[in-house]
């Protein structure tokens, strides 16, 4: 289904839309800007990447996941089914560091969708910064415990 047609159906109301203070925000996991607009709404496209924080377990280095629209498991298994909808999300956890994650983002969006690419990268960086703070506190807490 084309993005334009889906947008016409979805822009008025959808489960991710939050109207607040005159703003139209979105809780769509594939939306890296937070604001609901045509280009930033990822769930109506085929090739969106969402940068999503997860609940970190203790000692987990990274708590960011990339959420993609392609279901790699089933697509790889059954290539003839490419006309049916690729289901929602397969997550890639960013445990190998943000560099590999940013590579995935850059490869997916390339030079054609710079706005989306930058939004995703920005979110990745910000989440990792917050994660670093959490990690620092964690380490300090364990050190304090040992003493």
């Amino acid at each position, binding site marked *: 289904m084309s993005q334009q047609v889906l947008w016409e159906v979805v822009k008025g109301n959808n489960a991710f839309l939050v109207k607040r203070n005159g703003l139209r925000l979105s809780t769509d996991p594939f939306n890296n800007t937070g604001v609901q607009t045509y280009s930033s709404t990822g*769930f109506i496209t085929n090739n969106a990447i969402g940068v999503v924080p997860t609940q970190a377990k203790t000692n987990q280095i990274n708590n960011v996941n990339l959420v993609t629209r392609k279901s790699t498991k089933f697509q790889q298994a059954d290539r003839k089914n490419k006309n049916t909808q690729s289901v929602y999300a397969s997550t890639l956890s960013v445990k190998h560091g943000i560099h590999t994650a940013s590579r995935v983002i850059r490869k997916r969006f390339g030079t054609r969708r710079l706005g989306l690419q930058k939004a995703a990268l920005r979110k990745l960086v910000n989440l990792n910064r917050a994660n670093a703070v959490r990690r620092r506190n964690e380490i300090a807490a364990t050190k304090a415990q040992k003493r």
Partner: protein
Amino acid sequence: MTSVPLVSVFSADDSTKVTAKHIPLPAVFQTPIRPDIVSFVHTNIAKNRRQAHAVNPQAGMQHSAESWGTGRAVARIPRVSGSGTHRSGQAAFGNQCRKGRMSLPIKVWRRWHRRVNIKQKRHAAASAVAATGIVPLVLARGHRISQVPQIPLVVEDKIESYEKTTDALNFLKRFGAFEDVQKVVSTKVVRAGISKQRGKKYRVRKGPLVVYFNENAKLLKAFRNVPGVEVVNVTRLNLLQLAPGGQLGRFVIWTQSAFAHLDKLFGTYRYASVLKDGYQLLRPLLTNPDLARIINSNQVQEKVQPAKTTTVLHEVQKKNPLRNTKAMDRLNPYARKQRAAAIAAIKANTKGTKKIKKNKALKKASRAAFNKVSAALNDATNAAVQEEQDIKVKYFSVQKGAAQAE
């Protein structure tokens, strides 16, 4: 569409196993998504479950109230007759009065139900079925389908023989549909408003819709106690279930035979429907609605002019070409030559230096004459001024003399 989209049928026991690899998608799933038709039909059909209610026709009117008329320093509203109680003399009957009847009391014969054209209803149902096969629409409706292996989800007929709720639950868990059920459970809220006292205590979300085919299927009983799940026979698909609230994209689980039956129900683009008499699926206005793809296609890009890198709308500051030679030259490159030719023509017209000298002599003479005239003027003005001064002096000295004399 040259290639027919294909769907896998999953085994009921194992969500990774596929019993039938490639079944063609029924044509209903290709119908255009028409939220306008769906919402129109939905708003009307939703009224058909309403039960008649009315206000007691005598409510507020059970008095022998009469207006006191004018002249008694009170409003002319009918007033309760009699005496001996506070109520007597109070206003009655009007909608604005306390204890009066409402304006336009509701009658039982209010038009509660709406009829909708059959064709519209069918188009809406077809559109709603098509929407259940589109992942973003199901997501947009709010279903939790991230673990579901495929949309549309088609499962072998084995589930139609489920009798136990545990079987049903396990089945849902296997296919990632349990997340949606959990959503329903966790968002069950006590309803706001009086309805909770009228038998509608909770507001419950909609979960998956299970569609089966065989009439003797037992799965109705297995699934009916699972919160949020609805079960329906494919021959009785209901727009109110396919697009609850008029919102397209319900999460639907089809059994294999139900899925196969859809072609007979709605027909295809080659054959009209068998079961819906004379019904033909709606055709889309655009067969390829992907504008981006159309614009970027070879056929369009071949005909299109190359993109302009810069477009200059106007100069930074406007220069008048009639006065600014460079501006004129920019507009009319031949203007330069025209100007040079004009100057050359003027020079050619003037016959040598004699005429120039003659002009000079004339100029000299005229200047001399002018000087003469201006000199004469000067003298005249000076003389006049002097005369004035003399008179003034005389006058004031006479005055002084007179003053002295006194």
